């Protein structure tokens, strides 16, 4: 069966019409004075889902998280958690916990007291608190640091304490605000996988806010792309990448080449696009766009092949000149300037150590791609 490159386990409640939503944003608007941070936004998150809110800074994603935690109240609309309207419930009575971007560790308490803080507020008996704290320390591999104060820990260790503290109470939902933002790249990659394991093992619902698309793609079951307080698209990482719903999403997530044009002729999803300057693109993914519609044809760099001769079997092949080459080790990125001036980005995996068809700067070259490789966008 053909599918959109999905490799996830069998967990797709969003496709099940009978699945009960766990968190619901229902036409939520939040205004700060004249500024609208969140604009009439609706969103559904399911139990045990790892959900990412992805957007540039200032797009309103953190405000969504803070409304869920109870630090802000919506100006209009409502937020439901497990069927319960959260309006008016203060943060200290909500069954959600948050991991803060700054970690917000209590500087005057040891690691174990930081983790125990929430449990003590619930009046949990002392032996149980001790057992739970020990379990949490084991979970984040910080057993020997229990008696240390936050300033005696490295950045990565602090991040783990913050994580342990926020999951210690077994909240219904864990909110993570840029959880890996302060870590260096290598540590960030390791921690991404640890977070995913943790979410699986504890069976919690995670809502993570991030501006890092790679982070969202790696960890999340579904991603909501937010721009100017509105949801642009909610979909799995593979759908967001391979079937973006709009030009904004296509451009925001990953690299993309875009051709502006008009549908020249089309039947049953297949169409020819007249992209001007004598370029005609044939695609299988035109959807319902009818002849004459102005469209954008978007194609990812790795789906474009670069060769010195026109491939005999190619349906789409456009001639140009190699303008730039970046060798990155695992792959090589070509910038090819087409004869109409547009620059196309193409990337090739360096699967072999020796290249059969070496290309160099200013060489004439052909870019080619299959009719099912790109998508047609009308928004």
């Amino acid at each position, binding site marked *: 069966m053909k599918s959109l490159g999905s490799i996830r386990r069998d967990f797709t409640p969003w496709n099940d019409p009978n699945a009960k939503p766990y968190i619901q944003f229902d036409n939520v608007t939040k205004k700060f004075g004249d500024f609208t941070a969140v604009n009439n936004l609706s969103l559904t998150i399911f139990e045990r889902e790892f959900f990412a809110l992805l957007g540039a800074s200032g797009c309103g994603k953190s405000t969504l998280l803070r409304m869920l935690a109870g630090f802000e109240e919506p100006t209009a609309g409502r937020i439901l958690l497990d069927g319960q309207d959260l309006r008016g419930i203060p943060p200290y009575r909500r069954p959600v916990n948050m991991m803060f971007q700054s970690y917000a560790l209590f500087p005057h308490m040891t690691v174990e007291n930081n983790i125990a803080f929430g449990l003590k507020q619930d009046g949990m008996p002392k032996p149980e608190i001790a057992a739970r704290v020990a379990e949490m320390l084991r979970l984040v591999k910080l057993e020997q640091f229990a008696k240390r104060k936050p300033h005696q820990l490295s950045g990565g260790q602090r991040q783990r304490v913050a994580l342990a503290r*926020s999951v210690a109470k077994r909240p219904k939902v864990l909110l993570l605000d840029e959880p890996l933002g302060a870590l260096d790249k290598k540590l960030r990659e390791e921690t991404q996988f640890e977070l995913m394991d943790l979410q699986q093992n504890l069976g919690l619902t995670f809502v993570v806010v991030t501006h890092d698309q790679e982070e969202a793609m790696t960890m999340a079951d579904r991603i909501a792309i937010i721009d100017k307080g509105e949801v642009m698209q909610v979909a799995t990482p593979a759908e967001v990448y391979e079937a973006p719903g709009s030009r904004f999403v296509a451009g925001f997530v990953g690299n993309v080449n875009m051709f502006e044009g008009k549908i020249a002729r089309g039947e049953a999803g297949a169409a020819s696009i007249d992209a001007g300057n004598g370029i005609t693109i044939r695609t299988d993914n035109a959807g319902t766009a009818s002849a004459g519609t102005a469209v954008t044809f978007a194609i990812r760099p790795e789906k474009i092949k670069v060769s010195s001769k026109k491939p005999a079997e190619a349906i789409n092949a456009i001639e140009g000149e190699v303008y730039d080459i970046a060798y990155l080790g695992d792959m090589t990125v070509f910038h090819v300037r087409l004869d109409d001036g547009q620059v196309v980005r193409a990337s090739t995996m360096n699967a072999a150590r020796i290249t059969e068809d070496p290309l160099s700067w200013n060489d004439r070259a052909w870019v080619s791609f299959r009719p099912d490789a790109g998508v047609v966008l009308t928004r």
Partner: protein
Amino acid sequence: MNTTWSRFNITSVVLGFAFLYLPIVLLIVFSFNESKLVTVWGGFSTKWYVSLFHNQGLMDATWVTARVGLISATVATVLGTLAALALTRYTRFKGRVLFSGMVFAPLVMPEVITGLSLLLLFVAVGLNRGILTVTLAHITLTMCFVAVVVQSRLITFDRSLEEAAMDLGATPVKTFFQITLPVIMPAIVSGWMLAFTLSLDDLVIASFTSGPGATTLPMKIYSQVRLGVTPEINAACTILIAVVAIGVIIASLANKRREVQRQLDEQAAQRG
């Protein structure tokens, strides 16, 4: 950088320190004078320190000063902390600028005016002048200093600490006592010490607002000096200097130790 000592440098340092410390050194030296005449050296003696403790008037004044200082510093610390909290947290209430200006006005108000206006107030409301009025006056004087110290700490306070506490189930009241207060405690303690020191050496306001039986140590010393400086006063002042110096040294040593400890901790963290 030039590290050699030029003649000009040496001269300015000597002059500067002499200007600062010569009077104090003279005072300390003459407190150990055998002679009753303050300006004539008659050999080393500690007899003035002994007689000091038998001077009932001075001892009473010391006790008054201690009580006024402790109570006024404590009350001023509570009020000053609350004022600082209000000024940093509720930034949008009406008249905030006016209020903050008014809290800090006594910082620059001439003490004579503060003293006089307080005196008028106490007379107007019919409050008998005594230890209570001095204490109230000192609260007025020192509260703004506490507010300034605590406010500067609160400005750099990470509000997400409080949000984290509430997120973990602590009510606002619990959050204040378990998180906010412990974190800003060092600033509150230094505010208290500042208030106590200010109260300890205030002469002007105390003179205006005190009454019979509420003579503070600075007032007592000042009135005795008018009858002629005795070596006993020198001894009293030397003890006062010693107390303040010890306090300052302990505070700075504690600070230094904390700093060193923190650096060691951070190095330990780097090693993992």
